């Protein structure tokens, strides 16, 4: 299971577009819509892993195009911080990754999910197991 925290203004719409265009991508991704990736809190990421997520994607607007000016840059900092926290407890930092895309990039969304799916499959299931 991959949890994808998606910005309302870009990646969420891109995922929607990918669906409308019938672009195929791996099904094991669960989308959580955020008003902006700047809303991302490290605690949210840790909650996802604690409840058994194998990977976490954070998908925000193209750099420079954030609806709220710099929410996606804030998210990138937090993703990097989350990577260090995962490392501290022995989880692979590659289990979390930041992506940038616009709302018109349905194909980019599908590619991002495919890439993340491949990365996570390479790492194997999270040792924390799945919890309800």
């Amino acid at each position, binding site marked *: 299971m991959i949890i994808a925290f998606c910005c309302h203004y870009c990646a969420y719409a891109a995922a929607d577009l990918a669906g409308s265009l019938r672009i195929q991508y791996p099904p094991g991704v669960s989308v959580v819509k955020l008003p902006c990736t700047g809303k991302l809190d*490290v*605690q949210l990421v840790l909650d996802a*892993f604690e409840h058994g997520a194998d990977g976490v994607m954070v998908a925000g607007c193209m750099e420079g195009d954030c609806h709220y000016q710099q929410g996606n840059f804030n998210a990138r900092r937090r993703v990097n911080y989350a990577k260090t*926290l995962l490392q501290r*407890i*022995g*989880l692979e930092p590659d289990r979390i990754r930041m992506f940038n895309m616009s709302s018109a990039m349905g194909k980019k969304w599908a590619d991002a999910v495919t890439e993340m799916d491949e990365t996570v499959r390479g790492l194997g299931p999270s040792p*924390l*197991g799945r919890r309800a």
Partner: protein
Amino acid sequence: MIVAEQKPLKEIQSLVGEAQTVLIVGCGTCVTVCFAGGEKEAGILGSLLRMSARMEGHEKSIGEVTVQRQCEWEYLDAIGDRIAEADIVLSLGCGVGVQALAERYPDAIVIPGLDTKFMGLPLEQGVWAERCAACGQCILGLTGGICPIARCSKQLLNGPCGGSSKGKCEVNPEIECAWQLIYDKLNAQGRLDLIMEITPPKDWRTGRDGGPRKIVRQDLRLVVTEEA
């Protein structure tokens, strides 16, 4: 504010040891605004300890609670039930908070999750600098509002020393020479006369040399003693 940093996770884990039920107590004041021990940090640390324990093959019950101020009894009294249930209490308060918990709950095993660093201010988000050393006898009125006790590496009262070079301290070129700052400030204000006199040695009895310090204000006490 009091500025602190979270201890390394390994050190916290070693302090927690074999305890099964851990209560992380955050503090909602100084250590919240320096992002070391507030509600958010307590939550993150709780998640890390739970996940880490599970990855090592055992489950720990780790709860979190954050009080407004760990250094006042009233706030600590409100979490008595939670503390009674815990094998160990992991305080994310400053050193005062840890001791307040340990004093209020004598039976509880209280451990620190932070290293308390100094009294200072945020220069920008994510950067804090020391400003006060709590020496007990403030001389900022003579030094243009720049403290040579907290900011001069040698705590000189008559500086600068020979180690001041181009406004920087010989201890570390990133440290600004406090006495250069003091000189520049007083010079700009036309008040250099304030530091022309030699300042006599400081009476350190008001600082740590006088032992642990205490303030008693009879006008504020609710129980007035006879000698008041």
